[in-house]
């Protein structure tokens, strides 16, 4: 195997203006540590506190969703992996992306859900959020409130974009991109 050309990799990071990038098994502590680094970067960049909260919030909802999903599917710690990228976007916007391996069927359901959310305006998203807030609390321990995706859509400046790539064995790589 050829050695990794770090200069090339760096050039890729620079070109996409990536602030934070992670790929691998993700633990609760790691989510907090990366989140902390992210907040420090945003602070150093003089991001407005409101915008920084939006970026941080989307990062937290995405990564906690990934861990929750892996737990619900009984994935091992090693399988509880995520790919996370936070990059600068045009005009002071930020791009937050996160992806993980999912059962292909679950991925299809998620794509459908994102598609539905992308058609809602801010007022409709707020109504959906409030309705979900009133939905019964999930019974299984550690399950989420089911609010995460709506929260992400509400904070995003543009409709969410999602992709599902078949990796074989009934699984796919699901990724979500939010622009804040």
């Amino acid at each position: 195997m050829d050695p990794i050309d770090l200069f090339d990799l760096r050039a890729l990071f620079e070109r996409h203006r990536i602030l934070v990038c992670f790929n691998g098994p993700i633990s609760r502590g790691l989510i907090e540590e990366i989140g902390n680094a992210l907040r420090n970067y945003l602070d150093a960049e003089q991001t407005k506190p409101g915008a920084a909260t939006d970026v941080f919030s989307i990062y937290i909802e995405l990564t906690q969703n990934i861990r929750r999903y892996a737990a619900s599917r009984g994935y091992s710690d090693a399988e509880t992996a995520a790919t996370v990228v936070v990059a600068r976007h045009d005009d002071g916007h930020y791009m937050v992306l996160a992806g993980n391996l999912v059962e292909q069927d679950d991925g299809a359901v998620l794509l459908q859900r994102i598609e539905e959310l992308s058609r809602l305006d801010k007022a409709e998203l707020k109504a959906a959020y409030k309705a979900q807030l009133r939905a019964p609390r999930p019974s299984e321990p550690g399950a989420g409130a089911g609010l995460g995706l709506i929260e992400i859509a509400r904070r995003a400046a543009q409709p969410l974009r999602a992709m599902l790539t078949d990796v074989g064995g009934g699984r796919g790589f699901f990724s979500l991109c939010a622009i804040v």
Partner: protein
Amino acid sequence: MDSLNIVATQSTPSVIADWDSGVISMAGDSYPENSFEFFDQVFGWIESYLANTERPLTLELRIVYMNTSSVKAMMDIFDLFEEQHGKGRQVSVRWLYDARNERVVEMAEEFKEDCTFPFEIRVDG
């Protein structure tokens, strides 16, 4: 009855509940992975206070950021307040925020929309 004193962590707020004064204060960020577990102790204290005293209760919040599962757990507390308010019990929320972050006010206002008990939102300090 005991007062409650929980030290803040990176992802959970501090909680100081004073049985004698009837004030429970939470400050910091709230985004634990298992919010229900964290909020259970807070909820338990509030339930116990309401059941064992007749005195007013104030929830004072200096919460900056909450993940959605914390929002849901906080909603349970506000629902309990709403129910008690309906029974004539004196309960109130005071949300103090830093004027630089407009997201905090938006979050507080959205909670307030569904509450009829006294719910004050004002700049801290």
